[in-house]
């Protein structure tokens, strides 16, 4: 009786629900409900669905992984995730297929007399710990280094930082986010004094204009781009692609404006010039909330070893800034940027129109730039001058490349100068870290040591005798690998590589540690919109594979630091996260408790009183604002954001008669970074089996190069042979060639230049000079 009654009730409820959904559908054609999307998934298979974030890019889509008999057999978008609302991209849908790859690293491998010997994991960890201990004993603690990743989970990054900085006492810790987000961080810190975007993805639902700066979102942030396209077709929002290469994104945009590499600095200033000289400045906003500053110029490019630079900020006033902009009239800039005066004025008029909400989006084009910090500053200048910031739809939005570049690299701080809260140079920040880590404060060194490029230079020089890399493939992703590959092979440095698959980096390792993949361990990631997402282990990894965090802990224990790492094997992720949360307590950066993250598809920090803060610095949304005004840029001591005077300076290397082409490198939708995962997914490999060198059709014609022909690309540093691609996936401007860097069989980074932004130390992978010839 009870049964039939509840059945009847649930039937009536279902009917009631369906009739309401039908009514909604008649009012809003095309309306979607999460439960309907879940129904659309084929049944039959007895699947157990578990939630988590996607393994790949910084968008941080929610995924549901279907497992059956302990194997992951299906992936779908999480309809409850506000990031992607049930949609994924081709990489996301097929991600779990890589774990079954036949050449998976399942056991530890130790190099003995030139060959790799399968070794039990505990023995391999003994070797690593002993080697590390011996090296420290003979050469000092600054002779060991660790290089991690924006793909490390939050607990992994946290343990790495505590191990290196708290236990061993060296700042020799950096990560590959240095190659991707460092300029964004430096931009945020110089302009606002607080890292990470003030807005969130919901800005997309409010903006009237989307201006993408050197950013091929259709391929690199496809799910966010689909949200933009939806606004374009539903609300008529406009998309303007502002770049050096015609891409899929350009063809989907309302307008594509191409500029000459490196002139974005001048173009940004020209937009500011127009804003200032047409009276589009939001005067009350800049009076109340902005300061003006200038820094050093002609900083160099860091191409020499042990290059040092420290900026000297100096306050200026509005009139000085205005005078500075005189050099950047649209007419002057048009001459060398190859953008017409009309187009510059058009862009400026969009930013200048007080009735239009504008979202600027950028990623590697702006960050991987020898003046990347400046370029970030300039985009913020535009938004600050017009007051278009920190409110729904008005948003300068710095996108990230890696799934936890924000969560791990930037928030936990796996950089040489960083601590989980603040920087090593600040005694207060060191004290806090020492207190939570329970180590004496003197243990944490106060001076930053090596940033990524310099770290591998130190390996080459023999200063670093031991390096441990985790979730990262530097011998494909570093600039100028032609120098750093021989460096890593040198006998002087002992190399430990933790990874899931063999890579060119593991090829030079002395010990290879088999890591668990994404869903074979629990963890947390943090995406571009400050959203922290948790997942539980879903399947068992093969063989001896072990979560990276646990390998760090095991080595730390073997080295005698067991007291500092009192975590349990089963529950270490939870214990570490709870310890880490203490660093960020407060209204400015509070992290959501784990119970919330387990239940919901992520939460945005600052998480205050059970609520995500979607727009920071705006008193309407951000409880941390305390100055009584509409906006409070509380990252800076006086609560004011900084508008920076940043000039145009040429690139580190420009085309000349010997090397007449610009070389630009980047990615494709099918492959993630160095392809170690995606190339082992048959669907993705078949769609994009190898790299290529893209030509402008007129350049190809002049050199009589045919599509598919083998071409040798040579720079002052090295060369690489690839098939030509003419008018296929993308179209570089004339005088430029483009190569995606995912292909370890065609190493384009052998030719790139290790010049970097002196402030952020992020290398420029987008500009160097090459020559091309038929191979």
């Amino acid at each position, binding site marked *: 009786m009870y049964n039939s009654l509840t059945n009847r009730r649930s039937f009536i409820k279902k009917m009631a629900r369906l009739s309401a959904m039908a009514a909604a559908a008649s009012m809003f054609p095309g309306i979607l409900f999460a439960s309907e999307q879940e129904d659309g998934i084929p049944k039959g298979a007895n699947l157990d669905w578990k939630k988590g974030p996607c393994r790949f890019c910084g968008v941080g889509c929610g995924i549901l992984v279907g497992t059956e008999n302990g194997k992951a057999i299906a992936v779908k978008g999480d309809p409850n995730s506000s990031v992607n609302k049930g949609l994924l991209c081709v990489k996301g*849908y097929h991600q779990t297929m890589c774990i079954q790859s036949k050449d998976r690293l399942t056991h530890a491998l130790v190099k003995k007399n030139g060959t790799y010997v399968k070794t039990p994991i505990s023995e391999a960890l003994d070797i690593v710990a002993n080697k590390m201990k011996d090296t420290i004993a003979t050469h000092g603690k600054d002779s060991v280094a660790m290089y991690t990743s924006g793909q490390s989970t939050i607990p992994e990054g946290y343990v790495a930082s505590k191990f290196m900085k708290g236990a061993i006492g060296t700042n020799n810790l950096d990560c590959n986010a240095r190659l991707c987000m460092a300029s964004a961080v430096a931009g945020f810190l110089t302009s606002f004094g607080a890292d990470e975007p003030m807005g969130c993805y919901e800005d997309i639902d409010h903006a009237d204009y989307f201006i993408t700066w050197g950013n091929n979102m259709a391929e690199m942030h496809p799910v966010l781009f689909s949200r933009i396209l939806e606004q374009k077709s539903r609300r008529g929002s406009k998309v303007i692609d502002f770049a050096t290469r015609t891409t899929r994104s350009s063809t989907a945009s309302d307008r594509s404006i191409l500029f000459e590499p490196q002139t974005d600095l001048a173009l940004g200033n020209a937009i500011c010039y127009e804003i200032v000289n047409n009276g589009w400045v939001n005067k009350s906003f800049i009076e109340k909330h902005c300061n003006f500053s200038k820094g050093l110029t002609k900083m160099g490019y860091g191409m020499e070893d042990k290059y040092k630079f420290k900026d000297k900020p100096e306050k200026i006033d509005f009139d000085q800034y205005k005078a500075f902009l005189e050099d950047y009239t649209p007419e002057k800039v048009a001459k060398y940027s190859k953008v017409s005066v009309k187009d510059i004025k058009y862009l400026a008029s969009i930013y200048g129109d007080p009735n239009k909400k504008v979202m600027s989006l950028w990623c590697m084009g702006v960050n991987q730039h020898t003046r990347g910090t400046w370029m970030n500053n300039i985009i913020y200048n535009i938004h600050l001058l017009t007051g278009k910031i920190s409110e729904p739809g008005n948003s300068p939005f710095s996108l990230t490349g890696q799934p936890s570049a924000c969560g791990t690299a930037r928030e936990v701080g796996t950089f040489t100068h960083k601590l989980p809260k603040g920087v090593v140079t600040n005694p207060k920040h060191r004290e806090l870290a020492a207190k939570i880590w329970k180590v004496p404060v003197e243990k944490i060194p106060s001076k930053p040591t090596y940033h990524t490029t310099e770290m591998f230079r130190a390996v080459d020089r023999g200063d670093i005798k031991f390096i441990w890399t985790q979730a990262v493939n530097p011998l494909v992703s570093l600039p100028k690998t032609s120098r750093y590959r021989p460096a890593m092979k040198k006998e002087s440095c002992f190399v430990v590589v933790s990874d899931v698959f063999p890579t060119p980096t593991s090829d030079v390792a002395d010990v290879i540690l088999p890591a668990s993949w994404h869903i074979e361990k629990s963890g947390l990631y943090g995406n571009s919109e400050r959203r922290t997402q948790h997942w539980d282990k879903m399947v068992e990894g093969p063989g001896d594979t072990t979560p990276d965090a646990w390998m760090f802990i095991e080595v730390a224990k073997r080295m005698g630091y067991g007291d500092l790492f009192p975590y349990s094997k089963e529950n270490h992720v939870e214990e570490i996260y709870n310890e880490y949360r203490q660093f960020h307590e407060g209204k400015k950066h509070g992290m959501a408790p784990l119970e919330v993250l387990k239940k919901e598809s992520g939460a945005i920090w600052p998480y205050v009183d059970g609520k995500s803060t979607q727009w920071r610095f705006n008193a309407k949304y951000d409880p941390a604002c305390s100055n009584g005004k509409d906006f409070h840029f509380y990252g800076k001591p006086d609560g004011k954001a900084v508008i920076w005077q940043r000039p145009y300076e040429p690139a580190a290397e420009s085309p000349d008669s010997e090397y007449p082409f610009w070389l630009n490198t980047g990615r494709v939708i099918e492959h993630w970074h160095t392809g170690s995962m995606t190339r082992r997914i048959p669907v993705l490999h078949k769609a994009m089996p190898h790299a290529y060198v893209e030509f402008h059709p007129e350049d190809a014609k002049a050199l009589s190069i045919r599509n598919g022909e083998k071409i040798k690309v040579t720079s002052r540093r090295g060369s690489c042979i690839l098939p030509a691609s003419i*008018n296929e996936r993308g179209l570089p401007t004339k005088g430029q060639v483009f190569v995606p860097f995912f292909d370890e069989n065609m190493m384009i980074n052998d030719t790139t230049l290790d010049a970097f932004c002196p402030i952020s130390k992020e290398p420029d992978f987008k500009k160097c000079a090459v020559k091309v010839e038929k191979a």
Partner: protein
Amino acid sequence: MKKRLGIISLFVLLFITFITIWNFSYQVGLEEGYIPIENVESHTNIPSESGVFERAEFALEYANMPIDENHQRTLSAYYNNRAYYGAPPSIPHPIKDEKSLGGNTCLQCHQNGGFVKQFDAYAPVTPHPEMINCRQCHVAQNSNTLFKPTNLAKVHAPKVGINNALIGTPPMIPHQIQMRENCLSCHAGPAAPKEIRVTHPERINCRQCHVPTDRVVSEITPFTRTNSNDNE
């Protein structure tokens, strides 16, 4: 006299001012109007990429269009109208103007589609309306008999529902992209074969999730590492 002189000098003054101002603004105008000469591109930009978005403006309409179940095409009817899988479809109806090479005669119905009462069917939309010599590839079927019998066997066309790699993942593209860049023309709207009609035309950026499964000209071998450092 004085008055007249005054008036004349006033006009002369005005005239000079006018000339100066006009000259100045003309010069400024010249300067502002300076636009580097943009070369007219002699090629279409990345056709395989841009084609996807060509019919995007109709995406929402496609999404809201009711399904006319009485006049749906089936995939087998679609393949029957082709000599083999991948061949250009033939023209299954009388030709309006025998002298025309195609162009507007065909595009009238086949550029945007629509119901044709005469044939009791929806006109299929061409994915390549810019190629106007239609009858270079598409020919009419004016006879049902053969000159001589043939042994030609039809190759098997890709089937529906088997092109996804995992349960529930988006199907891959089992056909060549060239000249078929514009996905919505065949996969959306009332003339689309019902088996391959997309449920979500409003997504627009099709190849975000659907990628080609194979290169047309050569077999793709599994990923092999050739640049292993041991070889150096």
